[in-house]
């Protein structure tokens, strides 16, 4: 079976005419099914752009991107939306839960766009909430009544409900204290052990220890650990 993610010679360039700014250059990346990959880099390194392309929110300027065997590099807006609904579960740094809406409603939100039959919805949402270890007495609470850690669990449950092949998390611990952040990372690891593929974008060094593998991105290029360290030393930046 092929890798879940296959990126070949991918470029993303912003601007037009003489004013071109490359954000990503010559990216090659494979992520196997069931793998837990961390993409690490400082802000401005191009990791957000990479995450947007991996998440099918944006398309590359050049190169190919196969997700679950499908070439998504040339797709239009509505096709990309369908791919997102079917194949990707997003987890954001700022949770992005609907305020004034219950935990249950938040978790069931993806069903609106995946057209999941109503009869399956409650069961699948409950299974997802159990998978992230959210106490059952919280399920009917409004999302804004929860703590940060609980909110992120709800968000992870929301990413799980459609059973997507890929869970894409963008700085999921960025808005949490380190203890809660650690618990959330453990949740991701548990999910991976249950067979899920996780790509986590972060600048948190702890993640590298939990993930199967970490790749580093600097100035729009994927580099190995040593090059990354050398780069950071040269530019005087000290990330973590």
């Amino acid at each position, binding site marked *: 079976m092929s890798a879940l993610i296959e990126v070949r010679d991918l470029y993303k360039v912003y601007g037009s005419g003489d004013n071109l700014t490359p954000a990503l250059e010559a990216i090659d990346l494979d992520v196997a099914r069931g793998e837990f990959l961390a993409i690490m880099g400082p802000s401005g390194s191009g990791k957000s752009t990479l995450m*947007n392309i991996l*998440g099918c*929110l*944006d398309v590359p300027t050049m190169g190919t991107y196969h997700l679950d065997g499908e070439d998504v590099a040339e797709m239009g*807006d*509505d096709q990309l*939306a*369908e791919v*997102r*609904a*079917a194949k990707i579960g*997003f987890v*954001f740094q*700022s949770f*992005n839960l*609907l305020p*004034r*809406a219950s935990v249950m*409603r938040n978790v069931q*939100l*993806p*069903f*609106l*766009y*995946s*057209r999941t039959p*109503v009869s399956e919805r409650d069961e699948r949402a409950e299974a997802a909430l159990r998978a992230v270890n959210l106490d059952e007495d919280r399920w009917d609470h409004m999302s804004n009544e929860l703590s940060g850690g609980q909110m992120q669990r709800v968000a992870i449950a*929301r990413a799980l409900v459609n059973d997507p092949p890929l869970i894409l998390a963008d700085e999921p611990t960025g808005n949490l204290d380190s203890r809660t952040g650690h618990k959330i990372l453990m949740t991701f690891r548990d999910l991976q052990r249950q067979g899920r593929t996780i790509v986590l974008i972060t600048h948190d060094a702890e993640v590298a220890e939990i993930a199967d593998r970490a790749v580093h991105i600097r100035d729009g290029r994927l580099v190995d650990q040593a090059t990354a360290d050398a780069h950071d030393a040269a530019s005087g930046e000290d990330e973590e």
Partner: protein
Amino acid sequence: MRATDLVKETTLTLTSNKARSALTILGIVVGIASVILLVAIGQGAQNSITSSVASSGSNLLFLSASRGGGDRGFGGGPPGAGGGGGAAVSNIKALTNADADAIAKLPGVSAVSPELTSQYKVTAGAYNTTVQVNGTTPGYKTARSVDTSLGSFITDQDVRGATKVAVLGPTTRDNLFGTGSDPTGLQVRIKGIPFKVIGVTKSKGGSGFQNSDETVFIPVTTAQQVLTGSNSVSSIDISVETAALSTPVQTAVTNLMLQRHKITDPTLADFQIQSQQDLLNTVSTITGTFTGLLAAIAGISLVVGGIGIMNMMLTTVTERTREIGLRKALGARRGDISIQFLAESVLLTVAGGVIGIVIGWGGAELIASTGILAASVSWSAAALAVGVCTAIGVVFGFYPARRAAGLNPIEALRYQ
């Protein structure tokens, strides 16, 4: 997005901020309520005016002397005598009994009733009332479809003999003799001259300036001899056999009158002829314009309400930018986002419209029940209001919905 999901999402979103939703639809509520109420009042006025015109008889033509021609009078000559030699007399300006008799002979005319009306003080014992005294003929019964509830109406004999008999309208009877009493055989005095009451007409419930209930009918000849002292009449009512004959009879009467008054140029005619249909049309046009004006004024508030909706929807789109980004990340397509916001705006306006209809309808019923003004709400007006609300929702929701749908998910998710 499934239709049931759409409805559920929309209601959940709107009810999660009840105060704001309620305030947003207030403009629409007020707009629709005022449209419904004002149109109901206009419609009520139109109905009551047209029914009062219609109650004065059907297939009627009204012949009256034009301004400047009618007052010169004829003077001299016994009343009724003009019938034979009327054509020989030159410069006849006023309408006379002879004119009426000649018109009665035209084909298609079923009844003719000359009228000589004026306000007089009528007394009976200690009571008096100032009413319209209408000198007329038995033809009036047919022409204006009046009937007597007590006694009888004026007869041809009364007209020929110029007898001093009177038929009272029910209101006049109530004022002079007491409500529901039978005054036949009793006496009333008009301008001090005694008249014997021979009948009371049935109530027709007309209102305003032409209330036949507040009238006293006497023979036209009596009115001419005793009250005015001239043989002219103020108007002639011509009853046409069928509505279809109305126009040909109108032409025939015009030609006859031109001939009798020796006028060659029809534009110089010293009389005017009007059909009841003309009158109804005129009245309908006037009240229709009036209703339209009221609706237009109320319509302005609807537009203001619509702008309120658009304003709130635009605010909502800005406020919910991140939510829109999230929904897009979860797989919402452009159409899903746009239909959701459009549904919210339509649901707001339709809810406002329904509440507005209830309030407007209630207000109209309240006004009608007080009896100050007539008001009638029609289902068609209510249905139209709902249609207008939906249209407002679509029109004023379209731009915000498009804006929401067009947001870039990456920027929307990053929006603070």
